[in-house]
């Protein structure tokens, strides 16, 4: 462990799948993740935003080492990720935990909450389990007596708290949360977002917060990366991106946020999210982009740093840093 190294440093991750189109079709190579680099500091949260199929969940699994990238590298606390299944990998699993969208699916229905929170303590041989389970349940806002309950006896929000308690049992340095609130009711989403921020203040872990909801991402993240079709198209401070998105896709996402009392002229994109198996040439966003030029169809824009420190992958955003506001 090198204390000066970032907690997590992922470079140029590529993950390909063979996808069969239809029942009898030929296998097509799909690049679910196509050259993603990201970095998470201790005690900080990176929000990863994008629509379904953009590769954000695959990215989450890659940085956790649950999948091996076809190209690129992940280093955790300055060390490369050990190969899956090895002893070193198992030891490191305790330092990195995952929280999924569906808490009921993530919990074992036949075991009490207490047993499930104690499980990682047993696997990683951490002593004084009973007291530790009580502390963890209190930390996530559950009562210690709820350790006796079974998942179906808890509400959706309480279940997600239980999942968080289990993830925190091994004192992870990194938490990857994949759409942790989207299955929850609005009033419960707020509770879980507050909890995540609290827990980070207390335990200082780094968080990768994967979501399709820019509002939620802004609420919990220190930096935001916007993904489109396997690539990061914009990365920066949440407020900077929300107030002045540079990439046309980011701008669309921001304008799509439904917000009470703010009727803006919304950018309505034409067409469906593209099929990763049928990736457009050049900039993958160009067929739906309101400001695309001929160059965009030919050349893939690189993710480059702008003058203000923001990373943007767009030919136009770099050419003139202030695009016409409403080109749509």
């Amino acid at each position, binding site marked *: 462990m090198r204390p000066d190294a970032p907690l997590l440093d992922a470079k140029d991750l590529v993950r390909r799948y063979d996808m069969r189109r239809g029942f009898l079709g030929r296998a097509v190579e799909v690049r679910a993740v196509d050259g993603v680099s990201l970095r998470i500091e201790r005690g900080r949260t990176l929000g990863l935003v994008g*629509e*379904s199929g953009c590769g954000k969940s695959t990215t989450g699994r890659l940085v956790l080492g649950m999948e091996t990238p076809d190209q690129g590298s992940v280093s955790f606390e300055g060390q490369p990720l050990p190969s899956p299944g090895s002893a070193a990998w198992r030891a490191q699993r305790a330092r990195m935990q995952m929280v999924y969208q569906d808490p009921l699916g993530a919990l074992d229905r036949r075991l009490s909450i207490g047993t499930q929170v104690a499980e990682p303590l047993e696997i990683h041989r951490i002593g004084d389990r009973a007291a530790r389970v009580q502390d963890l349940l209190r930390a996530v806002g559950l009562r210690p007596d709820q350790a006796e309950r079974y998942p179906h006896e808890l*509400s*959706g*929000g*309480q279940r997600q708290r239980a999942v968080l308690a289990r993830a925190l049992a091994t004192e992870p340095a990194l938490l990857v949360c994949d759409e942790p609130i989207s299955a929850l*009711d*609005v*009033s*419960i*989403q*707020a*509770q879980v*977002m*507050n909890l995540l*921020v*609290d827990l980070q203040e207390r335990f200082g872990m780094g968080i990768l917060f994967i979501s*399709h*909801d*820019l*509002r*939620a991402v*802004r*609420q919990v993240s220190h930096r935001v990366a916007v993904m489109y079709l396997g690539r990061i198209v914009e990365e920066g401070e949440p*407020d900077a991106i*929300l*107030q002045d998105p540079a990439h046309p896709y980011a701008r*669309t*996402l921001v*304008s*799509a*946020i*439904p*917000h*009470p*009392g703010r*009727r803006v002229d*919304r*950018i*309505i*994109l034409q067409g*469906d*999210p593209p099929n990763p198996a049928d990736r457009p040439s050049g900039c993958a966003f160009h067929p739906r982009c309101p400001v695309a030029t001929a160059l965009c169809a030919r050349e893939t824009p690189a993710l480059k740093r702008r003058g203000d420190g923001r990373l943007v992958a767009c030919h136009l955003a770099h050419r003139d840093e202030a695009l016409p506001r409403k080109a749509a």
Partner: protein
Amino acid sequence: MAEAPLVALDGLTVAFDGQPALRGIDFAVAPGEAVGMVGESGCGKSVTWLAALGLLPARARIGGRVRIGGQDLLGAPAAVLEKVRGGRIAMIFQDPASSLNPVHRIGSQVTEALALHRGMGGAAARAEAKRLLDQVGIPDAARRLDAYPHELSGGQNQRVMIAIALAGRPELLVADEPTTALDVTIQAQILDLLASLRRETGMALVLISHDLGVVAEACERVAVMYAGRIVEEAPVTRLFDAAAHPYTQGLIGALPPIDGPRRPLAAIPGGVPEPWAMPPGCAFAPRCSQRLSACDIAAPPTARMDALHSAACLRAAPALRESVPA
């Protein structure tokens, strides 16, 4: 609402196996208006309209009154209901992929509604189906008539659902979480489509959603539901400026802001009560930060602030509002 309502629900109740799901809904939709129904899962916002159209399973016990025009729908003969469903009131649902029949072509699912409500058949029905698919913005509509639902994206399937709904020229479209299963950019497309269709056809819209933001953009008026009751009803701007019910205030406070400093969200503590463990008084009282001892005694009556704004909360009653600090 000065106009005679298009659809009126009076004291609508629904119970499943003895557990109440709706506990008395009084609600009216005027011709051509867009009204939202907001609430968390299990609050009864979908059940309300499924019950009104007689689409709940047989084990549901339904009470109260549902009228369209002057016609009673509850207990009406099947033939009457079948004319209303898809003819006067159309409904679309959350998950477009599973709401379309996987073994029938898109075209035949549209023409079926045309045959039922407009007596069209053959080439005329097919031509009208193509026009409807064009109207809802499906590219290459003529070819899409012969496609199956699995060959279309989620957003396109929702457009097909809307085309089917339009086929009967309904006076009211009930859209039950129409964008929840869709991506953000597609959600924007569908909301935009619903708004423009409403302008073109003049039909009324009931938009059921868990998302206050979505409702705020698409509707003029909102009803907030909690545990089987409407707890507040107001024009959209009024609701956001001066929500009277603590639950509505809580829902608004739970939305992460898009600007300003980041603070902990004003989350509503606890969770929605289960139908078999309803509090005796106000169902929201156990989670309410402004609760009074009277809140636990009986469900609060609906207090009317003005002609358009009402809330079922003791603190919202004008007499009390003076004496109790907010």
